[in-house]
Structures are given as C-alpha cells and as structure tokens.
C-alpha cells in the first residue's frame, strides 16, 4: 500500500515538470503584449525596452522558463504586473476560497448523486429510476451560470434569503464558519454541485445496475443475506469507481469554476484567472494555471491511491 503510493508519487514528478513547461509555453505563445496594460499608450520605445528587461521578457524563452522554474521551486511565482503584489500571495487567498467552494459543491453533488444514482440503479426501469435519471440529466445539461443567475433572482432578489455575491459580509474579510459567512457559500456551492451530482448519479446508476446483474449478487442471496447485507456488498463494489469520478469532478471544479465565480463574484482562482487573462498579466496567469494543473495532478494521485486502498484488484494485480 505504502510502496504503491510512493511509486505513484515518483511517477508524478515528470508529469509535473511537463505540465509546468506547457503552462509556461502556452502563455507565451498566446498573442498580445503583457506590458500594454501597465504602460501608457504613448510610452516611448526606450521605456518599453526598460520594462521588458525588468520583467525578463527580453531573454530567450528557455532561459525565461528555467529562471521561472527555479523561482517556482523557491515558492516565488513572481509579481503580478497589474497589481504589483506577489502572485503567491494573491493565489493563496484565492486557492483557499476556491477549495472551500469546490469541496463543498463536490460533497453536495456526491451525496445527492450517490443517492439518486443508487436508488435509480436499484429500482431500475421503474418510475423511481425515471425520475432520478431525469433529475440527473437536467443536472448535466443545464448551463450552470444560467442556473446561478436564476437562483440569485429567486433567493436573493425575490425572497431576499441569501446574499447574491461575495464571500462574506463587508468585502474580503477572513472566512469564519458561522451563518453570516456560510450563507454566502450556499448559492454558489449549490449551483456548482449540480454538475457533479448529475455525473455521479449517472455513473452510480450504471454501476449499481451492472453490479446487480452480476452472478455474485445471486450468490449473496443464496447464502441467505438480507437486503441490507446485499446492499453493503453493492456499495463496496461501487465505491472505488464512484470515488474516482468524484475526485475527477473535484479537479474539474477547481479549475472550471470561472463562470460561477464570476457570476457570484467569488474571489477564487477562477475569478483570478479571468482577471489575469483580461489584463494579460503573464506572471499571475502562469501562477494560476500552474496551481490548477498541479491540483489535477495531485488529485489524480490521491484518487489512484484511494482506489487501490478500496479495490484489492488495483494494486495487487
């Protein structure tokens, strides 16, 4: 078990280096001059050159990459061109917010998805299945930014129960786990949970239906297990795949929340990424992309290790 985790960890290294390289290159391949946003339109060529040197944009790309990588290893992601603050500082705040939002959304989505999927798979081809499948199809297909706006209109504007935007009362204060703060989390988290809910429930439905059709379920009944006992076996058989799907969904949510974070002005990585793109803030952009990519790499690692802990066939064969 431990050895397997260690082995997987070593495999992560080349992947991480490759990812960092792609992050760096993509940003530089993209057209647009990063200095446009900080320099006045009538800046002299001299000033332009000076700034270029200051940010190191005059050196050849491989050198820039190596310098950047060395800094990254020392925890220095550079300075944001737009705000002048350290990228790592901006990121750590945003990562915390996004993590909280995505974990919350994934949990909601996972619990509801498993519930719907399980019920649908267990009562396959009945009206219960059709209802649960209908809900999950809606979950997958509804545009979530649209759903977010609808929820804001209903719960914030019409009913006035929950705040529409932001992450806490009075601007960007520190997060506290009390109702005053949590009510800011509810709408974005629920909106965000709709996608993992749909995907998890469809996966779990297929899993449960497949497991139920296997002969060992008949074997379990043949040895006299009651429904609860059989259910336990089904859950343990379905768990590795369901958790893997959940892990990947968490990965998608961590990176793909730009739209929702924008709709709710949630100060997370997605929001930050949007800002960095529109301001051509290359150091910030690189930092955000790198962190999001690393999220994915390590989430995959975590999912693999967890799966091998749950499913004896993964690590031993």
């Amino acid at each position, binding site marked *: 078990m431990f050895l397997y985790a260690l082995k997987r960890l070593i495999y992560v290294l080349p992947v991480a280096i490759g990812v960092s390289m792609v992050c760096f290159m993509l940003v530089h391949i993209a057209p647009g001059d990063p200095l446009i946003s900080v320099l006045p339109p009538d800046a002299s060529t001299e000033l332009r050159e000076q700034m270029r040197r200051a940010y190191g944009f005059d050196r050849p790309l491989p050198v820039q990459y190596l310098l950047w990588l060395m800094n990254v290893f020392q925890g220095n992601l550079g300075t944001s061109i737009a705000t002048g603050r350290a990228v790592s500082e901006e990121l750590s705040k945003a990562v915390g917010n996004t993590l909280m939002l995505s974990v919350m959304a994934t949990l909601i989505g996972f619990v509801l998805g498993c519930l719907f999927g399980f019920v649908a798979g267990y009562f396959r081809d009945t009206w219960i299945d059709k209802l649960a499948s209908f809900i999950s199809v809606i979950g997958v297909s509804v545009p979530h930014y649209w759903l977010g706006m609808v929820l804001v209109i209903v719960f914030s504007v019409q009913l006035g129960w929950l705040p529409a935007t932001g992450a806490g009362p009075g601007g960007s204060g520190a997060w506290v786990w009390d109702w005053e703060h949590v009510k800011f989390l509810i709408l974005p988290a629920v909106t965000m949970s709709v996608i993992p809910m749909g995907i998890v429930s469809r996966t779990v439905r297929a899993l449960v239906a497949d497991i139920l059709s296997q*002969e*060992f379920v008949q074997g379990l009944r043949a*040895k*006299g*297990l*009651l429904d609860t006992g059989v259910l336990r076996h089904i859950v343990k058989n379905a768990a590795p795949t369901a958790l893997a799907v959940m892990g990947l969904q968490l990965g998608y949510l961590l990176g793909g929340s730009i739209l929702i974070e924008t709709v709710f002005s949630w100060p997370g990585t997605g929001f930050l990424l949007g800002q960095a793109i529109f301001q051509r803030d290359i150091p910030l952009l690189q930092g955000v992309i790198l962190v999001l990519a690393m999220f994915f790499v390590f989430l995959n690692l975590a999912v693999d290790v967890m799966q091998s802990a749950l499913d004896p066939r993964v690590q031993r064969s």
Partner: protein
Amino acid sequence: MSVQETAVQATALRELDSREAPLVRVRDLTVRFKGARDVFAVNGVGFDLPPGRVLGILGESGSGKSVTLKTLLRLLPENRTDIGGTVEVQGRDVLALEGRELADHRGGVVSMIFQDPMLALDPVYTIGEQIAEAVMRHEGLDASAAMKRALEMLERVRIPSPERRLKAYPHEISGGMRQRAMIALALACRPELLLADEPTTALDATVQMQILLLLRDLQKEFGMGVIFVTHDIGVAVEVCDEIAVMYAGEFVETGTVRDVIRDPKHPYTKGLLAANLHGAQKGTRLDAIPGAPPPLDTAPTSCSFAPRCAHVQDRCRAAKPPAAVLGPGRMVRCVLAEGAAAG
C-alpha cells in the same frame, strides 16, 4: 389427458408419497419467464429426494436444469417469473417463504454451488470474509468465531495453507481452489440440501475429478442431500445415486444411475449415451442426436422430443406421452415404455 393416463400418474404419485418423508418434494413444477417473448422453462417436473441421497439432473443447455435448481432457493427474478406447482423442503412450502424466513432457508437449510466461482464470489471481499458472513448471518456467531469456522471449512475442503487463503481475494487463487472455497462457503452452515449447478464445468479436467471426489466425500461426511445438475454423463455417474434426464423443461426419464445407464428407455437418453465420447473410436463419427431442442415459447402439448426422435409415432405428435412407471422412482415419459409399465 386420458382416464388411463391419469390413473397411471396417480399410482406413480402414490408410489412416491408412500416412501419415507422426503427431504425435497416437488410436484407439477412449472416455471414461465415473462417478457417480450415468454419462455416455458420448466413444464411439470415432479420428484422426491430422500435425505442423504444424491440426485443428478442431466440435460443439455436450456433444458431447464438450472431453473429447476434455482426454484428450490427462489433465486429467479420474482417480477419476471411465474412459478406453479409445489416445492417443499423438509415439509416447508418454499414457494410461500417470505422475507427473513426465506433468508433463513437460503444458506441455512439449502445452499448452492455455482458453475463459475469467479463470478459467484464477490471480487472485493476476501474468501474468509465471505464465508464468515454466512456463518454470522445464520448462526449469530461473532466475527472472530465466524472467521475460525471459515478456517475450519477451508481445511475441510482441503485447501493448502488455509490461513493464507482466508485473507486472499477470489482473483488471487486458482480456479480449483476457488471452487473449493465456494464449497466451503456452501457447507459452512451445515445445510440439509446442497444444490450444485454444474460445479465442475468451468474447471479443467484434472481439477474436475478432484472436486467431484471432494464433493462425494463431503456428501457422505455431512450426510446431506444433493441435487447435482450437469450435462456430463460421466460426472453424473461418478457422484449420483439417482438420475433424472431432463429435456425441454420435463423429466423424460428417472431412475437409479445403474438402471438409467445400463438400460435407458427413452430415445433421448439413448441418444445422450450414444453421443458420449468415452470409448469412441478415432475417425468414426459420434452418434449425435440430429436437430436441436425446441424453442420453449409455448407450453409443449405433444412430446417435445418427437421432431428429433427416430421412433416417432403419430400419437407422439398428438398428445404428451404419459409417464410410464416401471418401478419405484423409475419413470419414462415415452410411448415406447408403455408396454413395459403395464406388465
């Protein structure tokens, strides 16, 4: 149904009923699968199994052997099957069992060995857990006592280094060992009746023999009744006391192994014996039975074997042949055997 035939059947049933209280008593069992296409899988099967005896049900794929077997455990999907007739085990009406009673019956009184243990064991639980689970369920032992019983059972089925296998997952052990583990699981709660659904079909030939010998020894040791389903005559001869030959959802011939093998009466049984590989000369053609079993989308109203039978007569196609009783437990469902029955 003619008066004469009813009379013959009545004597046959009286004959069966007069024997000592059977472990299993099945009468007029019919199983129909409902669906886009109905299938009449079992059409009027009846037999008795005294305690401690081994009955072999012999027949080809789709003849209804496994379905008959699964009825004894009520393992067929409830919403898609119509079951008719009587099925009793130790005098209890199996078809009327519900809920916890049914669960107590399964594994406690009657248990089953499946054809392919790779498919019939849960892949994510260890062998020990799966055996212990059944013991805990039926005998209320705690986990460690149940695990001890599991170890004992693995020793009983002669699995080498049983402590290690206890912690193994089904995919980690060989096919023969898996089937031994399956047998250990089935016998863990001392059932009165063991159902074996082609337990050696998925194994290679040398392992087959070992498993058969093991089953025969354990049957004697535990003194349980066994119903053994197979399509292999050699296997049936090896382990069974009595044989029932099944065709198109009906028993066409029953009797002791000796009677059926030495003196088969039904043309289908004769055909099966002739098609056996044992003793066949290389280069000579096997005497395979021509044709294929009938589709069972309607209940048979005539002899189901008639289209393939070399001795077919007009009345075979007109009505179902009566069951001719030649002796205690010896029955042939064929017009050719009528004369013998009368005498």
